[in-house]
């Protein structure tokens, strides 16, 4: 990394001369020297969470639940076990995973007001907004205001349930299957499912409007 100094105007943190980059480099160097850490293991972890684990995993779970009632039942019973059926496993931060079903009368959304707990095996690492003070402070006290900022205004009469991940339980929302998707197969359905719909700050849009949200 040294020597890339002038390339890093946009991202000061990448410059080893700057605070956190230099500090973590020094700590890693020390831990490797002491034989406590294998740099290759660190690389593998980064690769896993940067490239292999992410919301596409959760989308597969949702799509399966939409097409397979038996799977949906086991997902709602114990999501940490059920996700094995789609080739996932309850890894770090998903050991105690619970799926929350959205219906025509109940909408669920998930937050961690105390830190940023998030179901890694199905959604990957959380986006910055999920970890922000704005979301953590308001999701419990002004959830409809937050949803409005996400472009979601729930119909009157829909009960809003906010889940604060204050312990070791992790939550994913099972969004409603949009109308007009009867002809789609599981894979096509999975492509419609967004990360935010599994946090509960969005709903899954019908195919015509798909791709509008993240």
């Amino acid at each position, binding site marked *: 990394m040294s020597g890339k100094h002038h390339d890093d105007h946009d991202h000061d943190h990448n410059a080893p001369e700057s605070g956190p980059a230099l500090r973590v480099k020094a700590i890693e160097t020390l831990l490797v020297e002491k034989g406590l850490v294998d740099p290759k293991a660190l690389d593998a*972890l980064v690769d896993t969470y940067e490239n292999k684990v992410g919301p596409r995993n959760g989308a597969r779970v949702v799509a399966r639940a939409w097409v397979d009632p038996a799977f949906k039942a086991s997902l709602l019973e114990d999501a940490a076990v059920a996700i094995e059926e789609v080739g996932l496993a309850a890894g770090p931060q998903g050991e105690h995973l619970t799926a929350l079903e959205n219906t025509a009368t109940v909408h669920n959304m998930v937050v961690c007001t105390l830190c940023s707990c998030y179901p890694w095996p199905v959604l990957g690492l959380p986006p910055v907004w999920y970890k922000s003070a704005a979301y953590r402070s*308001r999701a419990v006290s002004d959830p409809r205001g937050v949803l409005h900022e996400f472009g979601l205004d729930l119909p009157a009469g829909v009960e809003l349930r906010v889940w604060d991940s204050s312990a070791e339980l992790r939550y994913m929302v099972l969004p409603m299957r949009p109308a007009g998707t009867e002809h789609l197969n599981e894979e096509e359905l999975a492509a419609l499912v967004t990360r935010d719909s599994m946090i509960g700050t969005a709903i899954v849009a019908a195919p015509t409007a798909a791709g509008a949200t993240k």
Partner: protein
Amino acid sequence: MNGIHDMGGMHGFGPVVREHDEPVFHAEFERRTFALALVMMGSRRFNVDEYRRTIERMPPAQYLAASYYEKWLYAFEQLLIEKGVVARHEIDVVMAALRAGAASNGAHRAAVRANDEPQGSGAGDHNSAEMAQHENVAVGDVSRATSDETKTAHAGGDSAALSEALGGGARSLRLDQSYRPRFKPGDRVIARNLNPEGHTRLPRYARGHHGTIHRDWGVFVFPDTHAHGTGTKPQHCYAVEFGGRELWGKDHPAGERVYVDLWEDYLDFPLEVDTGEAQPRSAAARKHSSKSGKSHKPGAKSRTTKPSRRVAAKNDGRGTPNP
């Protein structure tokens, strides 16, 4: 602690700002911090509750100014030093060497060694690290070597193997010890008005409010003690349902509920609440109150240890971070 991290219900942070096409990591230091913290936690140099507790100890202004991974780095460094895994002077020396561009030729190693010599008190960092490990015996088996675990972590992206490699993750925070639950789904409860200076996972906004037990999640390690090395204090953890108006007042919109996962020591039956203040009420109520006041001191409960059918993982009190 009543810290800045306990944000539920606070005002003034503005709208939720989203980033379009957000990358998983925004800088290389985030990648390294994430992976290092995970591996060190997996090798049980410190547990997830200690980690969260350490982030919460960040000075409030610094906490608000720091990015997520800057908070991780702060806590990670702090714990490595406190546990004797590395010394602050070592970090300073290597940082200086890296700044001077000496990282590649190993000059900083000599510098570290030279700097190590006069540090008699620590008796060498490896010994301190050893001690840190022994401290953790109370909450886990430290027999497996770090290198084995990192090798396994390296073996692939399989999530379960990864979890195992990282020390079992949060799975190990749910225990197979059996305790008769004090509450059952449907019970009305009140979240205690606790204000500990130490770590707690009872959010301020829930304290003193009435709720209903929604679900019993089983027996978990108690973070308030686990974060301070004073034991796992296993107890049931429940999803507790609070009405929006119960939490935020009668003018709050109807049709909202907030579910908070709360440990048994955070909860009382409503009639048990003793504010500790003399209030005008009937003699009978006072009598009841003072009587029950004794029984809800933490740890003083009469919890029956009766075998239940819950099956879970080892009692080794480890976990992965997710601050």
